[in-house]
């Protein structure tokens, strides 16, 4: 798997761009991973795993504008750290991916909110489970497709669709309760 990832970065330009990106932001990524894992070796591994995932599917990364690449990589490294923590603690957490539901389209992207509602919605989203929040960020904020979200988060495409659906459903329910 690692050797397959190694072959994907095709040009020197891509490699150098990713190397520069890493150099500038490595401390940030490390701190994010460390905040979850509280172990420097695991945190470094999480950062390296994140780079491997980007290198494995570099088109998403290079298609993003520079200001969004950091956020994209941040979500990935945080998810990796969470996964490592779950494995370490052998903690079973709610698995959003196994929730059997009929996924229908929920459209909330086109809505606009006044100041008060926007503030409350922001706090509500911040308190959402991270797995759902990340799917929301990657799909709506960064416009990444499900196949690529799945790769970034290390899940199946179906699981990615389910997470986004649940996140949108939660927002929809929140807005409905406020009325």
């Amino acid at each position, binding site marked *: 798997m690692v050797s397959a990832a190694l072959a994907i970065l095709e040009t020197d330009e891509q490699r150098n761009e990713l190397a520069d990106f890493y150099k500038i932001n490595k401390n940030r990524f490390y701190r994010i991973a460390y905040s979850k894992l509280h172990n420097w070796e695991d945190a470094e591994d999480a950062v390296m795993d994140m780079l491997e995932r980007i290198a494995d599917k570099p088109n998403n990364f290079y298609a993003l504008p520079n200001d969004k690449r950091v956020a994209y990589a941040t979500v990935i490294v945080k998810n990796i750290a969470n996964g490592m923590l779950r494995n370490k603690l052998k903690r079973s957490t709610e698995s959003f991916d196994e929730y059997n539901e009929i996924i229908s389209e929920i459209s909330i992207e086109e809505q606009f909110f006044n100041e008060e509602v926007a503030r409350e919605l*922001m706090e509500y989203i*911040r308190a959402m489970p991270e797995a759902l929040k990340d799917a929301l960020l990657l799909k709506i904020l960064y416009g990444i497709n499900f196949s690529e979200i799945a790769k970034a988060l290390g899940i199946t495409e179906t699981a990615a669709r389910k997470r986004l659906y649940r996140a949108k459903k939660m927002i929809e329910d929140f807005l409905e309760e406020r009325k």
Partner: protein
Amino acid sequence: MTSLTDILGEVYRLDYAEFDNPPKHLFSHRSRKRLKKILYPKSVSCKADWRAVSPRKRIIIALMIIAFMTAGITAVAAANGFGRKEHRDNTEVFLTNVENSPKTIEYMYYLPEIPDGYSFNERISESTADITIYTCLETGRGMKIIQRVKENYKSYFDNEHALLEDIEVNGHKGLYLKSNYTDLASGIIIWDNMDYVLEISGDFDKNTLLEFARSLKIRN
């Protein structure tokens, strides 16, 4: 009015605000090795590997290569009795072994047969050098025979418009310089005869200069 996209952007900013301006972490050697494998796997060309090296390390490596090359050139030249240091536009020539050589001119050399068309012009004798000058009657160009003590000997030869070549005079290592400058002698031979550094220069080809060098005799 605020869109969902704007709200999500603010969510991200607030969630990760504590990680702005993080303290520096020195990644372990293990992680740095892994990083290199991710970015520059073995199948990539040497050019990509070079790019992975930091600028500071590139400079250090380049300086080391230059130093080794210089040492190599010096070492090769030293085997000939003359050491050489290549500068940008000249070659510095010095002697590698001056031990037990006379500190003053104790005996002098002369050219037993003066070349056709040349006549003796001048001789300058000092304690550490002896110079004999012949002049071509037709062109006015000079031919010199110079004998110097080995101690502190150093000469600089143009390497932009001249070629330095290893030669041998009576079993002693020497150098031949062919110059393209028209206002200087076109050929010079220098060699170390164990006691002194001898030099013959003039508008002659290498073989002719070698004949002159091999024919020099010690004055009675």
